[in-house]
């Protein structure tokens, strides 16, 4: 019987992988459902086991079964790992993703699984923490805080109970690495959490997954049940989010697990000292925890040998939006933005020129192609007025209206603000109003654009937000573009330095970067770059 491999990843299923898998099953093949390899332009992908190895065909449909099985299909790709998209990658964290059956303990063990946990359990707890410190691993959720230091704080905190919490509330548009890992190699995350539990002395862990990821929730629950005997006495449970973006902020996430509104807590106290239920808590991103088994199994030096400056190891970069070869590309830090977008991503999928890329999700800066020399590195991006965030890169072609994207950033912040601090709660709503005035003034000076409806908004006329936005009399306000632009900068400054967390504090990044790099979209007469600060 011929063995074929078809992904069960949510993205593959959205492209029709279930129908493909069913067709091969009907044709008498043994179908193994894997995670995704991570290149979506070849999905739905089927790999056929042959004497030459696993030969990929993609994209294919249910009608292609016969042609694929006799090897003559035009979409024959050869070995998937030999494709240009894959040869340049350093797959430390995603080594098994797309290769194994995600819920097969035998597959996981055969591909190096549980070695890290075995190594950790044979060591003193301080030695485990020291190894993570030596690897240089920094928080992959976006803040880049050294993971080993966080673990040390929890290890040193005296308490009768400690917790491990995995932040899988991956709400940033343009990011999907957490989802792919949970769906494609869930035991890797469980192993990382079990190592963390051993290192700091925790008995119970939570994985907080957003409700928009139903496949990841189901896979993680099944994987926890299947591996309970291996990680025991450590126990784990999945908590499902409920559509609040702000719960990706760690303290809001903790409140949400406790059954409260997902509101941000003031820091200090740090979660490492007073976290979940007031107990010392390790709270790490999926990718941080999933990097740990490799570090323990292969050694800190093997991980730290790759990287750039103070950013050590690999980053699973996600190429998204209007990009020809979108997907997951795990590579050492230091690769440039231009290499990622143009060489690996292949430019836009629309075939038009790249105008802007947003790095790091809704709170990340927009960069023009003139910034493509930037190396992928926490410090380099911070110096350029941006952030790596969760390493999602969203590509836009030249049809994008950057003023609308700036308005959308403010609108998103207004919709998702937890409401605890004023700069975020009120500032974002004022920001939408300012952007409406700028866009209105700009379109009035170009009569042919008049009446163009903002692409980023749905004017349903319902809800408190829409009412609040238009409650002020416009004839009392100086609506000239110059006045509104300086008001916008002033507001961004207040939000950046006055907000309690990154939602309000980082929303100015997309807004100001759009204004600085694309002033012509904001009605400026010539594209002159203004001072950033």
């Amino acid at each position, binding site marked *: 019987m011929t063995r074929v491999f078809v992904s069960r990843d*949510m993205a593959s*299923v959205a492209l029709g992988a279930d129908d493909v898998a069913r067709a091969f099953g009907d044709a008498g093949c043994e179908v193994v459902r894997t995670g995704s390899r991570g290149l979506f332009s070849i999905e739905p992908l089927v790999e056929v086991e042959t004497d030459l190895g696993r030969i990929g065909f993609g994209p294919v449909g249910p009608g292609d079964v016969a042609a694929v099985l006799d090897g003559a299909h035009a979409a024959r790709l050869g070995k998937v790992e030999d494709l240009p998209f894959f040869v340049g990658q350093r797959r430390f964290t995603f080594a098994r993703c797309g290769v194994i059956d995600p819920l097969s303990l035998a597959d996981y063990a055969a591909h190096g699984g549980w070695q890290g946990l075995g190594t950790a359990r044979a060591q003193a707890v301080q030695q485990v923490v020291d190894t993570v410190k030596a690897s240089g691993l920094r928080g992959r959720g976006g803040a880049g805080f050294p993971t080993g230091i966080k673990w040390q704080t929890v290890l040193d905190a005296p308490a009768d109970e400690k917790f491990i919490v995995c932040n899988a509330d991956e709400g940033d548009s343009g990011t999907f690495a957490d989802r792919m890992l949970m769906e494609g190699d869930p035991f890797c995350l469980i192993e990382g959490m079990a190592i963390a539990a051993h290192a700091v002395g925790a008995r119970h862990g939570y994985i907080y997954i957003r409700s928009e990821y139903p496949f990841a929730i189901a896979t993680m629950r099944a994987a926890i049940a299947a591996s309970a005997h291996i990680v025991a006495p450590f126990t784990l449970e999945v908590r499902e989010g409920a559509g609040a973006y702000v719960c990706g902020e760690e303290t809001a996430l903790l409140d949400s697990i406790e*059954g409260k509104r997902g509101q941000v807590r003031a820091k200090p106290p740090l979660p490492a000292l007073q976290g979940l239920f007031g107990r010392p808590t390790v709270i790490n991103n999926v990718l941080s925890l999933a990097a740990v088994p490799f570090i323990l199994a292969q050694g800190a030096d093997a991980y730290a040998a790759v990287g750039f400056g103070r950013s050590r190891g690999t980053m699973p970069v996600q190429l*998204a939006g209007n990009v020809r070869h979108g997907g997951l590309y795990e590579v050492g830090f230091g690769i440039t933005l231009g290499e990622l977008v143009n060489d690996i991503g292949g430019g836009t999928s629309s075939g038009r020129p790249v105008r802007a890329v947003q790095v790091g999700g809704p709170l990340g800066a927009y960069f023009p192609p003139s910034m493509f020399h930037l190396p992928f590195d926490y410090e380099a991006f911070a110096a350029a007025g941006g952030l790596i965030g969760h390493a999602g890169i969203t590509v836009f072609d030249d049809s994008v209206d950057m003023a609308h994207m700036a308005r959308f950033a403010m609108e998103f912040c207004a919709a998702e603000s937890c409401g605890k601090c004023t700069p975020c709660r009120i500032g974002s709503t004022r920001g939408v109003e300012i952007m409406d005035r700028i866009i209105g003034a700009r379109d009035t000076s170009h009569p042919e654009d008049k009446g163009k409806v903002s692409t980023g908004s749905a004017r349903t006329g319902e809800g408190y937000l829409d009412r609040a936005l238009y409650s002020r009399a416009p004839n009392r306000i100086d609506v000239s573009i110059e006045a509104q632009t300086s008001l916008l900068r002033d507001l961004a400054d207040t939000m950046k330095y006055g907000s309690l967390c990154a939602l309000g504090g980082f929303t100015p990044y997309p807004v100001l970067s759009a204004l600085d790099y694309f002033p012509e979209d904001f009605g400026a007469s010539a594209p002159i770059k203004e001072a950033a600060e």
Partner: protein
Amino acid sequence: MEEFIGAWTARHGATRDRLLPLLHAMQEEAGHIDDAWVPAIAKALNLSRADVHGVVTFYHDFRRVAPGRHVVKLCRAESCQARGAAAIEKAAAERLGVAMGATRADGQVALEPVYCLGLCAIGPNALVDGRPVARIDAAALERIALEVAA
């Protein structure tokens, strides 16, 4: 619903941190969280009614009125916008006869916004009654419209 709440808490516990899982279970069972059920939830978990109301209204997922028979959740986030989601949203609202964020008067279909499904390289994306659909164009939209008309 009191019976359901009693059975659920007997099985899963009645501590405060069970509130979100309980609300998810109730919505799974009944389609929404009716305001009339809030006192029973509060009593079961030893919380104030205001506390429960605050949580129900904070999270976008929890509905206080029954949804349409079919729910189309269309992604509005940046990566889908970069692939033409705004035009698809407009076309979907016209074809389905319902504004974004609303349920059609006959209760047949609701069009809801969602901010990222994590399928960001293959947008515009949607969840049609929980089933993921990618690369939505005019033809895909027509298939969705026929599906939710049934």
